């Protein structure tokens, strides 16, 4: 009995130290564990690539942080941040009042319009009247879901919510929803794919609503981490000024997505 107790105590101690050892100086950067081209998408080797990954590398190099990409489920990414499973969120997360109640944001690092895509040939306009009686797909926990619930649902539009943007696009191609509302760039990436070209086209941008859609996308941080926030903001400003931002953005876009 005594031997077993000693053995158990030893194993527990090892486990704690083993776990603690890995919490050294690395900063875990949370991204959504789903393909979201052109910002983040996995390649066949399991490595993540995309505009946002390049942005993360540039910011981390500038701020001298050892960043590790940590995919997390999108609908649990904020609880993961507050529970310290991850230390930052770089997942195209828009800065909104609602989110600011729980977490903090860095300065914005891009701002693009919100658009609607729909089945080719269908008369769909990105307005409450234009979508009345139709089904719109959105991803959960996004500003697009909030926007659709606020503006489209009262006009008689059915909202279908998906765990990932990818699934919403998939169901649009399958014909289960008539339209999908999301970030214009992400939607454009889908329309460039074979499947997107065949099924759908861009119906237009939605009417702006800064309260719901936010002033842009920022890096999600825990409240009270002023030092980290300083570093990130300084790094963002630095890469905007010294041309790094422009350099890697050129590979993906031919316009400046920083926005006004």
């Amino acid at each position, binding site marked *: 009995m005594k031997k077993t107790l000693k053995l158990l105590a030893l194993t527990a101690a090892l486990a704690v130290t083993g776990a603690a050892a890995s919490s050294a100086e690395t900063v875990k950067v949370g991204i959504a564990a789903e393909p979201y081209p052109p910002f983040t998408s996995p390649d066949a080797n399991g490595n993540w690539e995309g505009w946002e990954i390049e942005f993360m590398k540039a910011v981390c190099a500038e701020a001298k942080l050892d960043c590790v990409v940590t995919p997390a489920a999108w*609908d*649990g990414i*904020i*609880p993961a941040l*507050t*529970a310290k499973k991850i230390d930052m969120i770089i997942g195209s997360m828009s800065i909104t009042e*609602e*989110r600011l*109640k*729980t*977490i903090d944001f860095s300065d914005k690092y891009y701002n693009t319009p919100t658009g609607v895509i729909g089945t080719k040939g269908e008369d769909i306009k990105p307005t409450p009247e234009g979508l009345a009686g139709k089904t719109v797909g959105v991803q*959960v*926990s996004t500003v697009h879901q909030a926007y659709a619930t606020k503006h489209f649902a009262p006009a008689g539009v059915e909202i*279908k*919510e*998906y*765990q990932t943007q990818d*699934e919403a696009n*998939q*169901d649009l*191609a*399958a*014909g*289960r929803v008539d339209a999908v509302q999301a970030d214009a760039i992400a939607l454009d990436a889908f329309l460039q794919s074979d*499947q997107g070209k*065949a*099924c759908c086209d861009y119906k237009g941008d939605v009417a702006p609503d800064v309260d719901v859609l936010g002033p842009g996308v920022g890096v999600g941080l825990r409240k009270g981490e002023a030092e980290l926030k300083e570093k990130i903001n300084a790094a963002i400003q630095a890469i905007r000024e010294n041309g790094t931002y422009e350099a890697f953005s050129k590979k993906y876009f031919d316009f400046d997505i920083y926005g006004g």
Partner: protein
Amino acid sequence: MSNETTHALAFSPEDLPQAESFFKPHRIVLIALFVGLVLAIAILMRWDWLPRYVPRLGSGILVSLAMLFSTSILGFLLAIPLGLVQVTGPWFLKGPARLFCTVIRGTPLLLQLWLLYYGLGSLFPQFPTIRQSFLWPYLREAWPYGVAALTISFAAYEGEVMRGAFAGVPEGELEAARAYGMGRWTMFRRIWLPRAVHRALPTLTGETVLQLKSTPLVATITVIDVYAVISKVRQETFLTYEPLLLLALIYLCLTGLLVLAFRYFENRIPTRGA
């Protein structure tokens, strides 16, 4: 799965506590501590979101229960031929039935669900005529896929149970039925099926509780059951503990009610030494 395993996995009528056992001294102290804990949770944690969501929670619970009962009944109906054919059937029915049960029981339900919904969904753009067919309104919605996947899964597990039940009915009774000149269908209807169902009943109640534990998975294909409603609460309030604790409580109550109902019916159905 055998009866013992089902009993290990699902809360069963035998586990319901007896009323007298609540009055032992240690139990009264534990109950007092538990009530204290519940009160602490109710007072100290954030519940201001609850009134907004009560109607949605109600409809979510109804959807969950609808999924449970429809798929259990349909699955059981499908399990009867599956089990029977593995005991009697010609080889060209027995083989596929065995294969079906093995494949469905050997792969996770989540995978089957996503395969049905997204896999079939990816075929639709390639066959445009589907959209004009009468099935389209059902293929468009998410709940038929949920019902289909849960039914198939339940049928595969129950098929095994029914196989054992059909095989376990004493041969003598079937011989006696034949000696009476009963046709095969009459023998099945009046002797074999009722006796097999009686044998399988305890396991079936456990399996229905297990089916309730499988229903939340349909929320991942956009069916709005109680799990999906709580997920929405989590996403809108960013709370970690409160919504999940409420969800666990809801399922505890649903399971408890289900098990009580089963015990009531079990006591009313005469089982003369099955």
